[in-house]
């Protein structure tokens, strides 16, 4: 069994990422050591967790995540995932994971065509992956969202698979962006890759007025520890 102090997270930084320091602070506060990994790096060796943070990787040009998918680090990320490594994509990180085909579906422009920047309630719908393994189904979390393209879309077959395999981890209590089935966060089939639009790292300090992000990160860290 690992000790908590041994957990080491890599935070991938693309040109245009802007949440990497928030993620580092949040993870440090749950005793995870962090290091930034530039997108042109080709190695993720020695890491227990990799986070793709929010922001506007490569300016979001063409589509959010479309160019980031071709960064050299992505090949290492695929290998990391294939070897069972745990990856968390937050907001733009979620968009990158879908563009890279590492999570199913796609994220379109918000239904109301507004950039949404607000706190929003999400509900835990599955706890079979390490991300929410320690949270009872039905747990509600107050988390900030901050996006223009968070409207999750996939075809009916994919949606049925997501539902039947417990891959829909978080749903919005009051859908803010038109997302299919109120989806706020999903995992891959193996459960070691998660993407979510809300920003848990921005809800980890009393100064932010909400701290439910800590609940989610603590759950993940606890799973990785055991």
């Amino acid at each position, binding site marked *: 069994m690992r000790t908590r102090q041994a957990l080491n997270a890599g935070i991938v930084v693309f040109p245009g990422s802007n949440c990497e320091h928030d993620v580092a602070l949040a993870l440090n506060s749950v005793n995870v050591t962090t290091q930034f990994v530039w997108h042109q790096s080709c190695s993720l060796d020695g890491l227990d967790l990799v986070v793709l943070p929010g922001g506007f990787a490569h300016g979001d040009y*063409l*589509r959010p995540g*479309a160019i980031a998918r*071709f960064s050299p680090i992505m090949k290492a990320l695929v290998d990391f995932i294939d070897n069972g490594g745990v990856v968390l994509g937050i907001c733009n990180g979620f968009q990158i994971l*879908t*563009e890279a085909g590492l999570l199913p*579906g*796609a994220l*379109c*422009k*918000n*239904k*109301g*065509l507004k950039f949404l920047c607000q706190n929003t309630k999400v509900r835990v719908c599955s706890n079979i992956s390490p991300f929410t393994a320690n949270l009872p189904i039905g747990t509600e979390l107050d988390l900030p969202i901050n996006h223009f393209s968070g*409207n999750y*879309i*996939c*075809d009916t077959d994919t949606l049925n698979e997501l539902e039947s395999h417990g891959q829909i981890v978080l749903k919005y209590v009051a859908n803010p962006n*038109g997302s299919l089935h109120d989806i706020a966060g999903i995992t891959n089939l193996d459960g070691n890759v998660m993407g979510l639009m809300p920003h848990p790292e921005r809800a980890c300090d009393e100064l932010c007025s909400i701290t439910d992000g800590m609940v989610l990160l603590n759950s993940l860290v606890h799973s990785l520890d055991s």
Partner: protein
Amino acid sequence: MRFAVLIEVRLREGLPDPQGNTIAQALPALGFQQVTKVTVGKAIRLFVDADSETQARATLNRLCLELLANPIIEETEVLSLVAS
């Protein structure tokens, strides 16, 4: 040979198009009642070097699938391909 190309990237039929809807809703107030069914996509111009039009189109097909469009939500059409 060098070909000048114009590619349209558009949302797949049936997917929400809030930009198109917003423009369509503004039209009556501007006096354009006769304009309907607005959709918004992207137009991308580029040049491609190839030995033939067939080879150019093969390159463009791959480019569209791998980069210019997300096939889950978008489709593409080469609107113009002219030897230059």
